């Protein structure tokens, strides 16, 4: 790829990403009343989307190949237990990540 082609590619990615972020605000500007259905979606969707994002993070993990998702499951368990124990976001994230790194580098 030439530099110009690279810039065009990056520009296309910027445009696509920005479009997904601006679209709802362009469709429902402040003066226009947001339909009840859309407001309902705005309220119930985030919980579902965060679930989707968790699944998305595991999309490459296989139960049947490699390490059988054991390091992933252990590390998620660590995140959940740490978070239930202290409820400190940073501690839960760092603890789980360090645990996972140790598992994939040293054990599996």
């Amino acid at each position: 790829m030439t530099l110009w082609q690279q810039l065009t590619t990056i520009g296309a990615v910027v445009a696509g990403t920005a479009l997904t972020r601006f679209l709802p605000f362009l469709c429902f500007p402040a003066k226009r009343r947001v339909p009840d259905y859309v407001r309902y979606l705005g309220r119930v969707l985030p919980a579902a989307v965060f679930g989707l994002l968790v699944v998305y993070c595991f999309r490459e993990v296989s139960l049947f190949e490699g390490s059988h998702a054991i390091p992933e499951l252990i590390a998620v368990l660590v995140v959940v237990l740490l978070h239930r124990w202290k409820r400190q976001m940073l501690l839960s994230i760092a603890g789980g990540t360090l645990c996972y790194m140790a598992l994939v580098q040293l054990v599996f």
Partner: protein
Amino acid sequence: MRGRETDSAVRRAFCAAAPHTAPIFAGFWFLGLTYGIYMNAAGFSFWYPLGMSLAIFAGSMEFVTVGLLLGAFHPLQAFAMALVMGARHIFYGLSMLERYSGTGWKKGYLIFGMCDESFSINYTAEIPPGVDRGWFFFFVTLLNHFYWVFGATLGGLLGQVIRLDTEGISFVMTAMFVVIFLEQWKKEREHMGALLGVLLPLCCLLLFGAERFLLPAMGAILLALTLLRGRLSKGVRT
């Protein structure tokens, strides 16, 4: 006099916003660093992670873009890919329509910078009384943006110098979403939405595979929530 009042209001908003971004600081620093190192290993100078983290500001999409830049020139495919990867941001936008209204000139930047993390902080944070909402949202977004650009650029610069075993560091993203999911769970009385958000994508993942499950999963969630509207309308605390 008025100028001084505005100054202190801005400072108050910064002080209120900064602690909320602390976990993102750690996460973006690590992830950004790995992204910069990854780009460096793929043969790109630090200008690429610097410019891309600044202009795209969507972590997972930036990782994907490295692959696109290494392949054949196909800008339409890159555009479509960004739409698919970013489609969940349409949901974020719907949730933020009212919260971001009345923020003046900052609104454009708030929307541009609404990555997963900025969204989740600005959506969930309880803004202390006396703190300006617009400036609070602005600083959350700006700080997250800065952390990401800083990490990515540093990674690009240090890529050649340091040799760390960073295998597994990408789990930081997983851990973050798990924690956000748990926090969201605690806020709700009705967990149907959260459960659907895990189960439907899992089914789609098994059916369509890792490359193609995202769009059907989003469609299935949308459909299920639409069908359950009567039941769920009162279940979520607002």
